[in-house]
């Protein structure tokens, strides 16, 4: 990454996303009284946060802490009840789908389960090419099918998949390869922002490492802003510049990875940090 000469602490990168007072609640239909609206469960309780441009921000928390919900609000798969989501200064929290469509090009997402997020009936190249076709990326406004296919294959190549994979169906790929297809689809549009929602939690350790280093190098290459949702702090430490710790819909920590990992502010963060398995081997282990 092109590191500016000034110290990042004193001169923070401008924010791509600025979230202010974000609130979201779901109706709790299990406890709905007979003749009254269902009570609401607050999932996000007034969040304020910034996602700096060109950096990877990790969002951690236990399950149920609201991290996935926060991510889905950022890419506007969900609509918040209150608060602002400023993308480059524009509030996208209340836009309707038609107004969002041109912006979606810049807001891509990689899903947790590629088996579910890649359409099983479509060949890989079609999966990657579909968003390209909608936004008519690249050259002339009406490009042919063959060229679109080439664009998709180029995107596959960037994530380390041969063009031969383009003709396969998702179920014919391994877990790591599927997640690479998910990444290829997200980067094909050359977006500014990618939401990565637990993208390695379904993979074995070696595929995890490969996918993570791929994501890291792509982020540097394309100057991507990434929100990386995970429950695994060791992954966050390896990958991210900043980290936000969520607990029950509130922000516990928000700062650079070094700050949070060296001087955690809350007990819950400390507990999470202690839960990271240590990489050091015990010397006596071999005896």
């Amino acid at each position, binding site marked *: 990454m092109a590191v500016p000469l000034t110290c990042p602490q004193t001169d923070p990168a401008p924010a791509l996303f600025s979230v202010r007072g974000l609130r979201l609640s779901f109706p709790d239909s299990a406890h709905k009284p007979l003749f009254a609206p269902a009570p609401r469960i607050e999932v996000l309780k007034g969040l304020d946060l910034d996602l700096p441009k060109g950096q990877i921000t990790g969002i951690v928390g236990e399950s149920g802490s609201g991290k996935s919900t926060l991510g889905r609000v950022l*890419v506007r*798969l969900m609509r918040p009840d209150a608060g602002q989501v400023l993308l480059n200064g524009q509030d996208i929290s209340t836009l309707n*789908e038609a107004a969002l*469509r041109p912006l*979606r*090009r810049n*807001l*891509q*997402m990689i*899903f*947790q*389960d590629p088996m*579910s*997020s*890649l*359409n*099983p*009936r*479509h060949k890989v190249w079609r999966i990657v090419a*579909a*968003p390209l076709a*909608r*936004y008519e990326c690249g050259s002339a406004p009406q490009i042919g099918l063959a060229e679109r296919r080439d664009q998709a294959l180029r995107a596959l190549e960037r994530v380390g998949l041969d063009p031969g994979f383009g003709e396969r*169906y998702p*179920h014919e790929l391994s877990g790591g390869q599927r997640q690479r297809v998910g990444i290829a*689809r997200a980067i094909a*549009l050359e977006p500014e922002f990618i939401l990565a929602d637990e993208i390695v939690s379904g993979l074995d350790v070696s595929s995890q490492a490969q996918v993570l280093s791929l994501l890291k190098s792509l982020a540097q290459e394309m100057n991507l802003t990434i929100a990386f949702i995970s429950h695994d702090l060791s992954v966050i430490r390896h990958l991210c510049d900043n980290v936000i710790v969520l607990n029950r819909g509130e922000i516990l920590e928000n700062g650079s990875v070094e700050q949070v990992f060296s001087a955690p502010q809350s007990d819950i963060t400390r507990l999470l940090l202690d839960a990271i398995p240590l990489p050091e081997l015990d010397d006596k282990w071999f005896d």
Partner: protein
Amino acid sequence: MADVSLQTTPRARSGRRNLRLWLPLAWISTLVLAAVLAPLIAPHDPLYQDLFLERLPPFFMAGTEPGYWLGTDSLGRDVLSRVIYGTRIALCVSLIAATATCLVGSTLGLLAGFFGGWWDRVISRLIEIWMAFPPVLFAVLLVAVMGTGLTSVIVAIALIDWTRFARVIRAETMVQAQMDYVDSAQIGGARRLTTLVSEILPNVLPSIVALLMLEMGIAVIVEAILSFVNLSLSSDVATWGSMIAEGRNAIHFAWWVLLFPLIALFLTVLSFSQLGEGLKQRFDPVLQ
């Protein structure tokens, strides 16, 4: 699944699958040929009555007349020729009625399952009300109102049976709508209707095809039922249903009048349902 595949090699399994596809296809092709070439291959005029040749037994029994392979009915009409001409009506009804039913039912099911909300509420209530009607009585009523004839039979089948498609396709669509690929289509800038047609429909299509095939068989049966109660086509057209109805009166002395159209009906319905399964397995990239 795993323990099944341990016992049979992939080759054996694909062979059995192919049998499921090719046997029904062979029978249905025979029917299509018979329907198209009926004037050429039928040994007699299906409507020609010869009271001197009434209730002739089929060829393997004693007292038969050469040329009347499957015997004759109470009016001396050739059973084989009538079965051959009956394929015309059977195929016509199954093809047109089942396709119409499929179009109506699947469209409503897709809309209800994907858009939910008011779409789902209205369509689901409609299905529930529809299914509370006794189907055969409903068909009889419809044909009675619209008059007999091929068109009313087809309209009646489509109006009765669309709920079968709508229910199954709605449920299937709801399952598919939960998948992340729907969200990722939205992320990729797809409109809702585009998502439904290009993302969800291909995943629901195998079920639609299987149901369509089943419906083709059912349409043949419904036509036979309507013929049986004399509400299908006028009696100067040979149909399997009317043959079965007429054969019922003479079952004690001429069972063959009833049996042969019944066999044709049975094989056709079975073939269509097996073809549906066979097609689903053959063209499903995930099952392969």
